[in-house]
């Protein structure tokens, strides 16, 4: 997804995903001792307790492992959005299996339960989440179904 230079944008947090980028990637960590991966990156391995963790870019495609639809507006805080209780639109949430390296939880761009199926091919995108008071657009990562993947 390309970003406009006329609108100030910022990622929702640093070190979550590469941005700006034509093909954004999530930033994780890989344990040099046992190979376990984490997202976000962290300094200790939760599997073998090693501290030899290196940052890695995670695969940008994967398959949908499970999903749901968030049917009500989450309490705010912590939720942030330009919407209100009246204008809230349900959104999809799922875990995507990134080529067997790890499963990442994310918002989905699809929110129709008829169009979400376990095993569907998904790809990483960066999408607008909300605007700050000064107009800055805050973006986050999400997964969308790969078009033409037959799901």
């Amino acid at each position, binding site marked *: 997804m390309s970003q406009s230079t006329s609108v100030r944008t910022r990622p*929702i*947090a640093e070190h*979550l995903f590469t941005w700006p980028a034509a093909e954004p990637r999530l930033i*994780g960590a890989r344990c040099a001792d046992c190979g*376990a*991966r*984490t*997202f*976000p990156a962290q300094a200790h391995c*939760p*599997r073998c307790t090693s501290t030899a963790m290196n940052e890695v870019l995670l695969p940008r495609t994967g398959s949908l*492992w*499970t*999903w*749901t*639809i*968030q*049917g*009500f507006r*989450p*309490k705010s*805080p*912590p*939720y*942030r*959005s330009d919407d209100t209780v009246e204008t809230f639109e349900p*959104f999809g*949430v*799922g*875990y995507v*299996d990134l080529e*067997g*390296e*790890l*499963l*990442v*939880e994310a*918002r989905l761009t699809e929110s129709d*339960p008829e169009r979400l199926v*376990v095993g569907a091919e998904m790809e990483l995108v960066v999408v607008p*989440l*909300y605007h700050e008071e000064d107009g800055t657009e*805050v973006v*986050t990562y999400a997964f969308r179904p790969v078009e033409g993947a037959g799901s």
Partner: protein
Amino acid sequence: MSADVAVVGIGITPFGRHEGVSGLAQGAAAVRHALDDAGISWRDVQFATGGSQDAGNADTMVNVLGLTALPFFNVENACATGGSSLSVACSLIGSGAYDLGVVVGFDKHQRGAFDPNPSDWGLGDWYGEVGLMLTTQFFAMKIQRYLHDHGIAPRVLAKIAAKAFRNGSRNPNAWRRTPLTEDEIAGAAMISHPLTQYMFCSPGEGGVALVVCRADLATRYTRQPVYVRSTVVRSRRFGSFEVFSPWLAPDRAASPSVEAAQAALGEAGVGPEDVDVAQLQDTESGAELMHMAETGLCEDGEQEALVDSGATEIDGRLPINTDGGCIANGEPVGASGLRQIYESVLQLRGDAGDRQVPGGPKVALTHVYGAPGVSACTVLST
């Protein structure tokens, strides 16, 4: 089976909403009921354990119960608060330090879904801003995958919730006492697909207390002691699918419920087939379904046939959540674990009235599960 500890008194306050009554006051009221049940006074109590998640420090209730200088250990462990409090009490009695104590759990939550702060759970603020900081999503995604893996039809979720409201209608202390049809439940507002409003429990209020003592002293206080055969708390392992997880390892490990239940049954020297009545964490009806298998009471995928056959009803082969569970009682986090113990003791005493399991149940299993991946299981017997 041998036991170090017996439950000789139980007390509960009605679960639900109580405007103007603090959670602490509900806990203290439950303690008084438990003391009356055991025929003792607060002055006789040598120690206390207990806690709440959102309703204050348990040990401050000495202000209303009496300033007797007893040691009071605050225990707060999310959904496992009750199980952890009982576990601590059993260790204190088992070690020989004390003979007689009180265990109390209570809570009072705001209306609506829980709104935890991401930083309290080791997560960045972004996780909550995006809209992922919801336990409801976790349970929905776990049951969604489970139904897929085991070929279970979603309609069973409404059937389990209908049982909860039906059992709740027979429980004078339950919050939701009006039976609902499966169609009403399945057709209610979709909270988090595939789970509707009436398949979820709601955060609520309530208090429960127990009087526990050295097993060999139990008949001083009651003619019907119920023995704590085991009480086990477990946290998660690498690879288990847990609430508030931005990522999961590719290889699934078993839930902490599996280890807690296996250890509790093992320490008690019984098998799943010996359990006469079970109280399982039913944050939503899919949780009850999955926890049936995680606690070893059935195999993965067997649940649909068991539920359809009526096996999990009060008069079935394997009665589950006989008091209506969290779905009918609501979820005061600090109180729910002890509510399960209260219900188990009533059932084992034969005092459960309209909802009594027939045939004189002898062995009861309780199970709680909650964020961030903690489970507590208890085996009780006559």
